[in-house]
C-alpha cells in the first residue's frame, strides 16, 4: 500500500528527491482494530458485572449494569475522538485500559455487595463516576495537546507542579493522614474510620508531572550527565556538581518516606527517575549510585521508622504468629494470600469467594480479591494485559522520532510497570508490602485520573510516532 503522496506536508520532500517514495499505513485499520478490541473489552467488563450480581446477589440489577454501560459508552466516545485527533494512535492502549478499569469496577462493586454498601457510599458507584471524570480528563488531554513537544517547554513548570503536588498533603489543614500515610488531601471532616468525604492523593498526579520534567530535563542535560566524569572501576562516575538532580530526587523520595510515611510512592518516584536517567545517559553508574543511595536510605529508615521495619518483618516472616497478630503486622498480607490460595487455578467465580475478609480488598488488595475469584488464570490474564500495555509504551521508546517523546513514553509506561510490580509484588511477597494502587483497577479517583491521563499521553505519543512517514528508498 505504498501511496504516492498526495499529503500536503510531504509534497515538498518528494520534490526534493525524486527517488524517495513514501509508505503510509492505512490509519482506519488501526481504529477499526481498536473498536473491535473495545467491544471485546466492553463485553468482558459487562459480563463481569452481571456475573458478580448473579454470584453475590443471585439476580441481575439493571441500574448498575446501565451505569457500567454508560462508562463503556464514554470509552466509545474516546474511540471516536481518536478517529479525529489521533488517527494513528496505538490501538491496544484504550481497550486494555477499558478492560482493566471494567474488571476493577466489577470487583469493587462485588466487595460493596459483600459489605452491604449502597448508593453514593458504595465505592463501586464512586469508581464509575471517577472513571467518567478520568476519561473526560484523558479526552481533554488528547484534544488539548495536539503535539507532545509542547510539554518539553513546560518542563520546569512540571517540576514545580510535581514537587508541589507531592508536598501538598504535608500542609496543615489540607493534608490528611489516612491509614498511617500522609499522602492525601481532603475536604470535609474526617470520619471515625479515617476516611474523608472528598479526598484525593495528589502524589498520583505528581508522577505524570515528574515524568514530563525528567524527560525534558534529561534530554537537554544528558550530555553533561553522561560524557563528563571520572572513571572508576571501569565505570564513568558523574562529577559532583552534576549530582544535583539525583540528590534532589533522592531527598524528595526520602521526604516522602519519612514525612508522608509512604514507602511505595517513594520507591516509585525514585525508580522512575533512575530508569529515565539511565535510558537518557546510558550510564549504569547512575543506576548503581542511585540504587545504593535508596537502599541505604531505606535500610536506615527501616531501623529508625517503625512502620518500615514492620513492613520488612511482615514480608520476611509473614506466617509467624506474633507478626501475624501484631498491630500493623502481616494479617492483611496473609489473609490476601489465603484468598489467592482459596481461588486456586480457576478461582471461586465472581461473587462466590470471600475477598471482603481482607482489609482494603477493593483498593490496595484488589489483586488478591481478583486472584481469589478469577483464580491464577485470571491473574495471569491481568498481568499479561499490563505487560502488553507497558510494551506498547516501550514501543514508543524504540520507534519514536524525537528523544523527548521517546523518553516520556518510556517513563510513563515504566511507571505503570513499576507500580504494578510494587503492588502485586508486595501482595505476593516478592518485595515488602507497600500501599500503592493497582493502576486502572483499584478503587480511588486520583489513581484512575492519573492513569487515564498517562494512557492519553501514550496515545498521543504513539500517534506522533506513526505519523512520521517511513521512508523507503527505491532505486
Amino acid at each position, binding site marked *: 500500500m505504498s501511496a504516492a503522496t498526495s499529503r500536503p506536508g510531504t509534497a515538498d520532500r518528494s520534490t526534493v528527491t525524486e527517488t524517495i517514495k513514501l509508505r503510509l499505513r492505512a490509519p482506519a485499520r488501526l481504529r477499526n482494530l481498536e473498536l473491535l478490541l473495545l467491544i471485546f473489552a466492553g463485553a468482558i467488563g459487562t459480563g463481569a458485572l452481571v456475573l458478580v450480581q448473579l454470584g453475590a446477589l443471585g439476580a441481575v440489577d439493571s441500574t448498575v449494569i446501565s451505569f457500567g454501560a454508560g462508562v463503556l459508552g464514554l470509552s466509545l466516545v474516546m474511540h471516536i475522538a481518536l478517529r479525529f485527533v489521533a488517527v494513528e494512535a496505538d490501538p491496544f492502549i484504550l481497550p486494555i485500559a477499558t478492560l482493566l478499569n471494567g474488571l476493577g469496577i466489577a470487583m469493587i462493586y462485588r466487595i460493596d455487595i459483600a459489605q452491604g454498601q449502597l448508593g453514593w457510599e458504595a465505592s463501586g458507584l464512586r469508581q464509575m463516576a471517577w472513571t467518567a471524570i478520568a476519561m473526560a480528563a484523558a479526552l481533554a488531554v488528547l484534544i488539548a495537546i495536539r503535539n507532545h513537544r509542547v510539554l518539553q517547554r513546560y518542563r520546569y513548570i512540571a517540576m514545580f507542579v510535581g514537587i508541589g503536588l507531592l508536598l501538598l498533603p504535608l500542609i496543615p489543614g489540607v493534608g490528611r493522614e489516612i491509614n498511617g500515610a500522609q499522602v492525601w488531601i481532603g475536604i470535609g471532616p474526617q470520619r471515625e474510620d479515617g476516611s474523608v468525604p472528598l479526598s484525593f492523593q495528589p502524589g498520583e498526579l505528581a508522577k505524570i508531572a515528574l515524568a514530563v520534567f525528567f524527560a525534558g530535563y534529561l534530554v537537554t542535560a544528558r550530555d553533561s550527565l553522561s560524557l563528563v566524569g571520572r572513571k572508576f572501576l571501569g565505570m564513568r562516575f558523574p562529577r559532583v556538581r552534576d549530582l544535583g538532580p539525583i540528590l534532589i530526587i533522592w531527598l524528595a523520595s526520602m521526604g516522602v518516606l519519612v514525612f508522608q510515611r509512604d514507602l511505595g510512592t517513594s520507591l516509585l518516584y525514585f525508580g522512575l527517575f533512575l*530508569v529515565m536517567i*539511565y*535510558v*537518557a545517559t*546510558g550510564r549504569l553508574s547512575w543506576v548503581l549510585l542511585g540504587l545504593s543511595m535508596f537502599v541505604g536510605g531505606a535500610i536506615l529508615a527501616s531501623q529508625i521508622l517503625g512502620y518500615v521495619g514492620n513492613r520488612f518483618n511482615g514480608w520476611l516472616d509473614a*506466617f509467624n504468629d506474633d507478626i*501475624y497478630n501484631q498491630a500493623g503486622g502481616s494479617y492483611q498480607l*496473609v*489473609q490476601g*494470600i*489465603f*484468598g*489467592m*490460595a*482459596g*481461588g*486456586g*487455578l480457576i478461582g471461586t467465580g465472581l461473587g462466590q*469467594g*470471600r475477598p471482603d*475478609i481482607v482489609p482494603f480488598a477493593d483498593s490496595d488488595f484488589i489483586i488478591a480479591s481478583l*486472584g481469589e475469584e478469577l*483464580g*491464577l488464570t485470571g*491473574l*495471569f490474564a491481568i*498481568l499479561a494485559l*499490563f*505487560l502488553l500495555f*507497558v*510494551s506498547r509504551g*516501550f514501543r514508543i*521508546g*524504540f520507534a519514536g522520532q524525537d*528523544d523527548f517523546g*521517546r523518553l516520556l513514553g*518510556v517513563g510513563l509506561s*515504566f511507571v505503570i*510497570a*513499576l507500580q*504494578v*510490580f510494587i503492588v*502485586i*509484588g508486595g501482595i*505476593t*511477597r*516478592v518485595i515488602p508490602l507497600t500501599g500503592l494502587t493497582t493502576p486502572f483497577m483499584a478503587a480511588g479517583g486520583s489513581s484512575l485520573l492519573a492513569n487515564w491521563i498517562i494512557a492519553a499521553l501514550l496515545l498521543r505519543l504513539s500517534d506522533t510516532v506513526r505519523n512520521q512517514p517511513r521512508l523507503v528508498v527505491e532505486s
Partner: protein
Amino acid sequence: MNKELKRVSAVVLLMFVALFGSSTVISALEADSLRVDPRNTRTILASYSTERGPILVDGVAVAESVPIDDEFRFLRTYSQPELYSAVTGYFTLNQGDSGVEGALNDALSGTANDQFFAQLNAVITGQDPKGASVELTIDPVVQQAAWDALGDNTGSVVAIDPSTGAILAMVSKEAYDPNLLAQHDSQAVIDSYNALIEDPNRPLLNRAIGGDLYAPGSVFKLVVAAAAIDSGQYTADSQFPNPPTLQLPQSSDSISNAEGGNCTGADTVSLADALRLSCNIPFAQLGGALGKETIAEYTERFGFETPLEIPQTVTESVFPETDMDEPTLYISSFGQGSVRTTPLQVAMVSAAIANQGTLMTPTLVESITAPNLEVIEPFQEDVLSEPISEETAGTMTELMVANVNNGAASNARINGVDVAGKTGTAQNDGRDNTLWFTGFAPAQNPEIAVAVVVENGQGFGNSVAAPIARTVMEAVLNK
C-alpha cells in the same frame, strides 16, 4: 538509547516473570497447605456454608440446618433440643462440637472421604454441596418414655436392643439446649457455654456414656455371678456362709448386708438367693474366692476397658485389678470399692445376658445417607464379644427373673411379662446414693435391655430406678 531500552525492557520482563512466578507459588504450588492453615477463615467459613446434613430419628429431623440470611447461610436448629441433647450433642461455629454432631462431623459436613466424588459432582453440576444425613437407631417413643420417666431426677437412662446393639433410648439429665450453642453470635455462644459449664448440675455431661463414672453397686453382682457360673467353679446352688457381718481380710473394717442381719436366716445361702435378695456378704466371699484376675477377665469380656465409639467416644468402665488389695476386692465384688461404670456398660451386661451370651456392639447409627439418597453406611450388626456361654446366660436370666418376681427388684414387675432385672444402691461416702436398675424384657425373647441410674438418690434402686426402667420397657412392649 535503544541498547538501554532493551536492558530496561529485560528488567521489566523480569519483574513480570517474578509476579507470574510468585502468584503461581501462592495459587497453585502452596495452595493446599495454605488452605489448611488454621488461620484461614475462608476454609472454616466454607465448611459452614455447606448445608450440613440432618440428624434423623425415625425419619424426622432432630437436628437440621435451616437457611438463614447471614454469611453462614445455615443455622443449626434442634427441634427437641433437651430431649435429644445427650444424643445429638451440639454444633458450634468455632467452639468445638460434641455428640453425634462432633463424632460424625465428616459425614454431616460432607467432607468424609467417601463423599469426595459426590461433592465434586455437585460442584460441577452447580448444586450447593450438602452433607450426608444420619438416621439414628433411637426409637422416639422409648426416648420420650425414658425422658418422662426420669422426671426431675439427675441421672441417665440407656436402652438397647440386645439382639442388634441398636441404642433405642439415651437420656441424660440435666439436659441442655444445643440451640444456645449453635447461634452465630460467637459472644453469645461463649456466654451460653460458660453458663452451662458453671451450672452445678453440669448439663453438658452426658451421664449415659461419659464424664464421671458411677459405682455400680449391686448391679455389678451380675458380672460376679456370671463369672462364677461361667468359669465352672460355681453353680446357682453353690452355698456360701451367711454371717450378719464379715470381717474383711487384712483389715479392721467389717461389712454387713444392706438390710442388716443375715441374708435368708439360714446358716448358708445359695448363689441364687444371694443374687435374688442382693446380699453383700456372700458376694464379697465369692469375689475373694474367684480372685481379682477372674473377675477382671469377665469385666473385660462384658466391655469394661474396651474402647467404644457409638459413634461418640464412650468413657471406659474400669475394674482396676492391678492395684486392688484384698479388702477392696471384697467390697468391689458387690459394686462398691474401686469398680466404676457408665450406664451404657451396665445396659451392655444385661444385653449380653439377654442375647444368650453374645454382646452386640452398641451403636446409635441406623444409616448414613448421601444427599443423592445413596446409603453410604448401612446399619451394621457387630458382635463385640461373647462374654458368657449360652447356658450361663440362661441361668443368669432365671436368676434375674426371680429377682424381679420375688426378690429385691419387685418394682420392675410388668403384668403378663417376665422381666429380668437387678437393682443397685451404691453408697458414696456421705453423699447421695447412686440408685440403679438394669434388666431386660421379655425374659425369654428380649426386645429391650435397659439401665437406669439416678444420681441424687433418696431411697433404693428398687424404689426409684426400677419403676423408671419398667416404664421404659413397657414403652417397647406396648408397641
